[in-house]
C-alpha cells in the first residue's frame, strides 16, 4: 500500500511539474460511491473511492498528448459470491471443488487508463496509445462495439482505454474513413477495424468491419494451469452498420451487426431506438435490442450464460429486450427519471428510478435504485437482489 501511495505521490508531483509548463492542463475528479443489494435477507454494501487524474497537453497545434491515471479503493463487502445470485439448478452445474472461484473480488486498483498521443495532419489524424474506443449509435447496447459492454443500470459511465493505433481520414466535410489496429500477442490475434462514416440528408450512417479474438470462458471447466476457468478464444468477424437521424420529429437510431464465429455459432445483434423531448422538458427514450446468441426460453439459461453476463463477456442472455427511460428536470438543479429494462423473452423486468443533482458547479450526485420483478431463473429475478447506488463526484 505504502509503495503505491509513493507511486501516486510521485505521479502527482510529476504531473504538477509538467502542468507548470505552458499548455498543459491537469484536471480530473474524485468519486465516492456506495452500492447496496438485498441478497438472501441481508443488505450487502460495497463502497468505493476513485481518484482520476487527467493530463492533457497540446504540445503544438498538431500534437496532443492525453493521459489519465485511476486509483480505486474498495471497502465493505469486497467479495461477492456469484453463486448467491444463481438458481439452485444452475449452481448444480458448478464443478466440485471450484466454488471458491465463483467469488467476485473487488480489489484496490491503480492503472493508467488512457495514455495516447494524437497527431493532427492536414488530411488525417493519427492517435497512438491507450484510448477509448466508442462505436455505434445505441444508448445501452452497441452491436458494433466489440471492445466494450455497457452497464445496464449506468450506460453512460466512461469506458476503459484500449491499446490501439487509430487513423481517421476526413473525406470532405461529410465522410470519415477510420482504420484501427489494437495489438495483441500476434498479428493474427490483434483486432483490426475499418469504418466509413458519412451523412446523407439528416441521417448519419456508418459501415463497420471488425476482426477480433473474443476471449470468453467456459465456466464449467477449470484450467489448473492458469488457475482460472478455461478460456475459449475464438476469432470473431463482424460486419455492421449503424444510423442515427430524425423521422417524423422523433430522434431515431439503429445498429446492426452480423458476427461470423470461428469456434461457435454465428449470431447477429440489432438495436432500434427512438427518443423525444416534450415542450414541458420531459425526455423519453425507448431502445429495443435483439441478440440471437441470447435464449428465448429462460429454462435454458445455464451456468455459462449467467457467468458470461455477470463477467461482462456477453451483452445479454435473453434474446429480446427493451430499455425505456423517462427523465424530467424536477428543479433547475435536479432531474429525476425512471428506466425499465424488460426482457421480452422471459417476461421479467427491472425498474430503475434515477436522480441527478447538481450540488455545486463542480459537484454532482447521481443515484439509482433497482427493483427486479421476475421469477427465479429469469434475467431480472427477485433473487438477483434489489438495491441501489449513490455516487458523489467532485471535478477539479
Amino acid at each position, binding site marked *: 500500500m505504502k509503495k503505491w501511495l509513493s507511486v501516486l505521490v510521485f505521479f502527482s508531483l510529476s504531473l504538477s511539474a509538467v502542468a507548470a509548463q505552458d499548455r498543459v492542463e491537469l484536471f480530473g475528479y474524485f468519486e465516492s460511491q456506495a452500492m447496496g443489494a438485498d441478497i438472501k435477507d441481508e443488505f450487502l454494501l460495497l463502497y468505493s473511492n476513485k481518484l482520476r487524474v487527467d493530463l492533457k497537453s497540446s504540445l503544438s497545434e498538431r500534437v496532443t498528448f492525453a493521459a489519465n491515471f485511476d486509483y480505486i479503493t474498495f471497502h465493505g463487502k469486497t467479495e461477492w459470491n456469484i453463486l448467491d445470485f444463481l438458481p439452485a439448478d444452475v449452481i448444480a452445474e458448478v464443478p466440485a471443488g471450484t466454488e471458491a472461484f465463483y467469488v467476485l473480488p473487488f480489489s484496490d486498483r491503480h492503472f493508467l487508463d488512457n495514455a495516447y498521443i494524437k497527431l493532427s495532419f492536414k488530411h488525417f489524424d493519427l492517435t497512438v496509445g491507450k484510448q477509448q474506443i466508442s462505436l455505434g449509435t445505441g444508448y445501452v447496447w452497441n452491436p458494433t462495439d466489440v471492445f466494450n459492454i455497457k452497464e445496464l443500470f449506468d450506460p453512460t459511465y466512461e469506458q476503459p482505454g484500449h491499446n490501439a493505433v487509430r487513423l481517421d481520414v476526413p473525406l470532405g466535410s461529410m465522410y470519415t474513413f477510420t482504420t484501427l489496429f489494437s495489438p495483441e500477442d500476434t498479428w493474427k490475434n490483434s483486432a483490426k477495424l475499418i469504418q466509413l462514416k458519412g451523412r446523407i440528408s439528416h441521417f448519419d450512417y456508418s459501415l463497420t468491419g471488425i476482426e477480433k479474438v473474443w476471449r470468453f470462458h467456459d465456466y464449467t471447466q477449470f484450467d489448473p494451469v492458469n488457475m482460472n476457468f478455461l478460456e475459449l478464444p475464438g476469432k470473431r468477424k463482424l460486419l455492421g452498420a449503424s444510423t442515427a437521424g430524425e423521422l417524423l420529429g422523433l430522434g431515431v437510431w439503429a445498429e446492426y451487426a452480423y458476427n461470423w464465429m470461428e469456434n461457435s455459432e454465428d449470431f447477429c445483434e440489432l438495436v432500434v431506438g427512438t427518443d423525444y423531448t416534450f415542450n414541458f*422538458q420531459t425526455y423519453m427514450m425507448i431502445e429495443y435490442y435483439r441478440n440471437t446468441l441470447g435464449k428465448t426460453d429462460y429454462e435454458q439459461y445455464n451456468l455459462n450464460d449467467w457467468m458470461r453476463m455477470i463477467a461482462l463477456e456477453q451483452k445479454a442472455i435473453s434474446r429480446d429486450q427493451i430499455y425505456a427511460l423517462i427523465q424530467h428536470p424536477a428543479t433547475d438543479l435536479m432531474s429525476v427519471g425512471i428506466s425499465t429494462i424488460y426482457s421480452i423473452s422471459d417476461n421479467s423486468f427491472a425498474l430503475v428510478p434515477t436522480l441527478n443533482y447538481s450540488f455545486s*458547479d463542480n459537484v454532482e450526485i447521481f443515484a439509482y435504485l433497482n427493483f427486479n420483478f421476475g421469477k427465479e431463473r429469469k434475467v431480472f429475478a427477485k433473487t438477483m437482489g434489489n438495491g441501489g447506488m449513490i455516487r458523489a463526484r467532485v471535478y477539479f
Partner: protein
Amino acid sequence: MRRKKKIFSFPEIEILIKIVDSYSPHFKRNEVCFHVSRNIILKDGDNVLNRMKIKISINKNLIRMCGGNPMKQIIISGLIVLILAPFLYGQELTGEDIVQKVNDLFNVETAHAKAKMTIQTTSGQKRTFIYESWSKNKGEKNLVRYLEPRRVKDQATLMLNNADDIWMYFPRTQRVRKLASHAKKQKMQGSDFSYEDMGSGDAFINDFSPKRLKDEKMEGYDCYKLELTRKPDSDVSYSRLIMWVIKENFVPVVIDYYDEDDPTLHEKRLVESDIRVIDDIPTAMKVVMYNKNDNTQTELELLEVKYNITLADSMFTERGLKK
C-alpha cells in the same frame, strides 16, 4: 452637364428609400450606402416651398441632407426630420420588414464569442458556465464548446443547417451523439435558455408570423412592438412572442415568450442591455432571461465578440467538434 430639375414628392422619396432599404442587407451597417444628388423643388400643392440642390445620403438608420445654403439646409433638414422621417420609418416598415432586420442583425456572416452564463435558481444558488461559440454562413453553422466549469469542460455541440442537424460531444466517453431537432427544446445546461432560444438561423422568420403593433417605449428606447404568432406547421415551444425592437438599430431589447398551449400565459422574458457597436454591428453584451413560472433567471454576458472573421469549414465537422 447641368442636372435636370426634378420634383420629388414625398411618396417618391418613400419609394426611393424603399429601394435603398431592399438593398440594405448588402451594405455594411452604419455606413452610408446610398447617395442621391438632385436639384429638387419641394412643393406644398401649387406653392413652391423651395428650390435647391440637395444630396440625400441614406442608410439603414440615417437620412442626411447637404447642399444649398446652411440656413436652407437646416430648414429642409428640419422638414425632412419632422415630416419625412416619421412617415418613412414609422409607417412603411411592416412586421415582416422589422423581423427581417432583426434576423439580419443576428445572422452575421461569421462570428466568434466567449460568453459567461450565470444561472440563478429558485433557491438563490448560482451556477456559472463559460463557453466559446463560433458561427458561419449567417448562423447556418454553429459550434459551442464549454470551457468552465470542469464538470462540462470540452463538451461541445455542433449545429448545422440552421440547427436541423445537431451533434453533441461528450469528452469523458469520447462519444459523439446525433440529436434530433426536438433536443433544441432541452434547457441549455439547466439554464432558462433552451437551445431553441439561443436562436437558430431564421427561426423568427420560419416559425412565426409577425404583426406590427403600436410603437412603444421600452427600457428607455423608442421601439417597434411586434407580435409573432407561431405558424401552424411549426413545432416551436412558444405559441407567440411579443418583441420590442429598438428603432435606431433593430436590436430586440425585450422579448416575451408565451406558453405553448396558452397564448395568454407569459412564460419567460428576455431583456437585452449594454448595447455596443462591435465591428459595426450593434451587439447586446448582456442578455437576461427571466423565467416567470419557475422564478429563476439566467444571465448571459458576452466577454469577447468578433464578427466577420475567417473560419474554416473544417471547424464545423465531427473532427472539429472533437478538437
